[in-house]
């Protein structure tokens, strides 16, 4: 590493780092909202902040323990007053390991949001540089103005598509793959078809309780996250362009109108 040479303030407190598959950046977050998404689905808070590795790990842990312990079925039974059935269905061998990691993911994402907010303010005050684009053999990532409602619209059709539109590819693929898996195992689309035909009893029967209960959280998070990211990428674009224009097009030789 660059031993001996102290880093400049701008290097120490970066605002945004662009790779060709996504721009990871700091902006002000409400830590309670981040904590909520971690509670809804461990991993989501971290993914939203841009801590992908921790986020994906926690998400994988949640899927493993939840499916093995039949937690979702237990939740449905509990919410519908069938407490004895809930007690019977859950697998304690797995369930008891759930609480610590669930609480960690909430606590950790809350604290990360608070800390990253401080760094975001420092980066803003340093006017840390923002890369306007990054191209590689694999992808083309260009900071651009995008309409957040278009992103929400695509996400409502299939979570992940909006993230591909706004070029946050890790989140996009992650949501897309899990949504497809959940739609398949829950028989969601078959139930949609039955519902559209008015066959409500058949729709209820074909659905897989356990898998369908994952989907509201995933859909809600996807819509929230794509909206916030599209809006914040637009602000990043404004800042980058303002800095560029100020440095390039304010020549001292320019003659102002007299």
């Amino acid at each position, binding site marked *: 590493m660059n031993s001996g040479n102290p880093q400049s303030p701008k290097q120490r407190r970066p605002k945004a780092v662009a790779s060709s598959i996504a721009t990871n950046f700091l*902006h*002000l977050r*409400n830590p309670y*909202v981040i904590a*909520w998404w971690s509670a*809804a689905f461990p991993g989501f808070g971290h993914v939203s902040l841009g801590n992908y590795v921790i986020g994906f790990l926690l998400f994988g842990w949640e899927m493993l323990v939840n499916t093995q312990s039949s937690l979702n079925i237990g*939740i*449905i039974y509990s*919410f*519908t007053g069938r407490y004895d059935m809930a007690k019977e269905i859950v697998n304690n061998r797995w369930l008891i390991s759930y609480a610590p990691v669930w609480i960690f993911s909430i606590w950790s994402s809350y604290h990360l949001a608070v800390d990253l907010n401080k760094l975001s303010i420092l980066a803003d005050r340093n006017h840390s540089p923002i890369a306007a684009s990054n191209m590689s053999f694999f992808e083309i990532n260009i900071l*651009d*103005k*995008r*309409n*957040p409602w278009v992103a*929400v619209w695509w996400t409502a059709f299939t979570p992940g598509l909006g993230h591909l539109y706004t070029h946050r590819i890790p989140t996009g693929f992650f949501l897309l793959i899990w949504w497809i898996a959940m739609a398949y195992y829950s028989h*969601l689309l078959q*139930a*949609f078809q039955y*519902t559209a035909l008015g066959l*409500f*009893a058949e*729709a*209820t029967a074909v*659905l897989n*309780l356990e898998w*369908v*209960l994952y*989907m*509201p*959280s995933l*859909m*809600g*998070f996807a*819509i*929230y996250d794509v*909206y*916030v990211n599209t*809006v*914040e990428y*637009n*602000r990043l*674009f*404004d800042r980058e*362009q*303002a800095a560029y*224009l*100020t440095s*390039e*097009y*304010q*020549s001292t*030789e*320019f*003659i*102002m*109108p007299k």
Partner: protein
Amino acid sequence: MHVVASFEHSNFLELAISDLEEKGVEKNRICAIPLHKMVKERALFDTLHRADGQSMLDLPAIMATIFMTLGVCWGFMWKWGPIIWGLLAFVGGVTVGLAIKYLLYKNSLKENFRCNTEVVLIIDCKPDEVETVETVLFNHLAIGIGRKA
């Protein structure tokens, strides 16, 4: 002579500047001044060109997730099934969330007014360039264009 134009931040603005340079207006005759917003930025709905960090969608997304989860759970026991109840609950959650957000921010909305100008561009022109410069600016989505003799 000077031509003045107002713009929003966009790639069209950079295209406009590079187009002017292609047409012989040197760099030191172009002055771009990005504006700082003087009003407290706070709008109910973010748009393509403005956002205030106050996310309009956080509460609706949270409410929708909670309501939809409950709608799916209870829908298994109700006649229309989990799909319809899940969707109805989703819409209900979004509506409740938006309503709360709207009530919370209704007061601060009053101080908001719509002003899109984000960058002012001033070009020092020779008299025979004015028409060309104005056409270029007009073709790249300038909000307003003016000139000073």
